[in-house]
């Protein structure tokens, strides 16, 4: 591809959307012709038709709000405790050296399988789901906060020292702002893991918002509805992450 084509403002995104539409049209055709079993993959036109039904009958809005509330609560918890945890580990070197590898290990383990335990402790409620999200999202935030603070360029620290900053000033005016980009990466990762666990547990225990919706529709063999609900969740997920990006850009109007 020549550079001109690659840099064209509309061509690449148009190709992206175009190929998506073409793919959907192809699937529709193959189903109508019978090459794809319509009892496994409903026609895209049916799926689109199912959208309004699903949205209205299944109270998609209230389900969405429930999942959103769970995700939001988990995010707040993860942000507060994760960043605080990372700062603590940065501040207390001994603690860091003792526990950093443990935290990294926790980040690598599939914590979601602990959900039966949470069920017993917190009951079959939104609290279980929030706590699962919190548990899953915590470790990446701690690690990335720690990484961001540790990776502050030496010269910036020296600038602070040359201006005789107090330790508190040094932290709030230099270390923390310098670490923010990495902290945001950690928050995004934490949110992703939290959401995976939240929607996953909703799906598994058949309680809650959007995860439960998909489970229910699948169990009812409402094919078009299931597909529609999945598309809907994808859309929601995309919007959430676009929103977090905008939020980050608004909070850090740099590069």
């Amino acid at each position, binding site marked *: 591809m020549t550079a001109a084509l690659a840099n064209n403002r509309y061509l690449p995104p148009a190709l992206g959307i175009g190929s998506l539409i073409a793919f959907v049209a192809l699937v529709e055709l193959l189903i109508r012709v019978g090459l794809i079993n319509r009892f496994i993959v409903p026609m895209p036109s049916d799926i689109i038709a199912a959208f309004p039904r699903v949205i209205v009958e299944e109270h998609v809005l209230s389900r969405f709000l429930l999942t959103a509330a769970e995700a939001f609560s988990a995010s707040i918890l993860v942000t507060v405790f994760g960043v605080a945890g990372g700062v603590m580990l940065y501040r207390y070197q001994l603690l860091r050296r003792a526990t950093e590898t443990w935290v990294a290990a926790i980040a690598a383990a599939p914590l979601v399988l602990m959900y039966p335990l949470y069920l017993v402790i917190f009951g079959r409620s939104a609290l279980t789901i929030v706590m699962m999200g919190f548990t899953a999202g915590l470790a990446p935030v701690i690690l990335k906060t720690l990484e961001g603070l540790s990776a502050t*360029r*030496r*010269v*910036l620290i*020296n*600038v602070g*020292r*040359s*201006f*005789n*900053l107090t330790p508190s*000033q040094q932290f709030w*005016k*230099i270390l923390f*702002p*310098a670490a*923010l980009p990495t902290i945001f990466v950690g928050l995004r990762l934490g949110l992703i893991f939290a959401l995976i666990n939240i929607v996953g547990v909703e799906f598994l225990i058949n309680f809650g918002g959007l995860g439960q919706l998909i489970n229910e529709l699948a169990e009812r063999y409402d094919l078009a509805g299931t597909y529609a609900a999945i598309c809907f969740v994808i859309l929601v997920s995309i919007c959430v992450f676009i929103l977090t990006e905008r939020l980050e850009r608004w909070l*850090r*109007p*740099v*590069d």
Partner: protein
Amino acid sequence: MPAVPFERIDANAPKTARRDPILVVDDIVKRFETPDGVLTAVEHVSLSVAPGEFVGVIGPSGCGKSTLFNVIGGLLDGYEGTVRVAGERVRGPHPAVGMIFQEESTFPWRNVIDNVAFPLEIAGLPKAERYERARRFVKLVGLDGFERRYPAELSGGMRQRVSMARTLAAQPKILLMDEPFAALDEQTRLLLGDKVLQIQQQLKQTTLLITHNITEAVQLSDRIVVMTYRPGKVKRVVEISLPRPRSSEIVSSEAFGRYVAQIWSDLREEASRGLDDEESRKLREADTR
């Protein structure tokens, strides 16, 4: 241009300048412990700077220039000897000393005006006064119009000017610069050198410049201290009697050329000692692996 004679002052001449010096560096010895043993970075280095003077310190890589910079700036301790600023002994970064670092040091999350206002913010100046003062220094370095821009939007030379404005905004009695233009190309250097000269002239700023660039040193300094290779000692102090006010045009004068030649003949000896030493060190390292 008429030939301008230059005087050579050897290392044994009195170390005080004509007026009462504002910075006195007395017999500094700084050693480091490394896996290879004890390294003496600087040994019995003394110099002094009078108010309003521009002194350059030049030496080959590895001569301890940056060590000296950090010692005078108060970022290093554990050395023998004293550093005094306006009579006061330096223990830690002295409020009257402003430092400009070699590396990229603007705060990427603050725009230009916020960067420059930083020391004033720390000092607790009220907002309006802060910004008014900061704007003056932004203008001084020639960046007016760029106040709201972020460092990522600026060139390397412009960012160094921001760092400079930030340090100057604190109105330090002594300005300490460690190879501030090392990352820039030669032409930008010369032009920024002009800027620095203008600023220094205007503010009558006492300045100590550490550099490895001979042209830069001769262009900007009243006096140049030439250092030996590690362990760094003062090899020679050269008085630069080029007329002031100067501009970058001075680099094409004969006198300029003579100063540069003389300093290079001193430096070359030290620099090749440095090169040989580096090579044999690397060979030893490779052998012990």
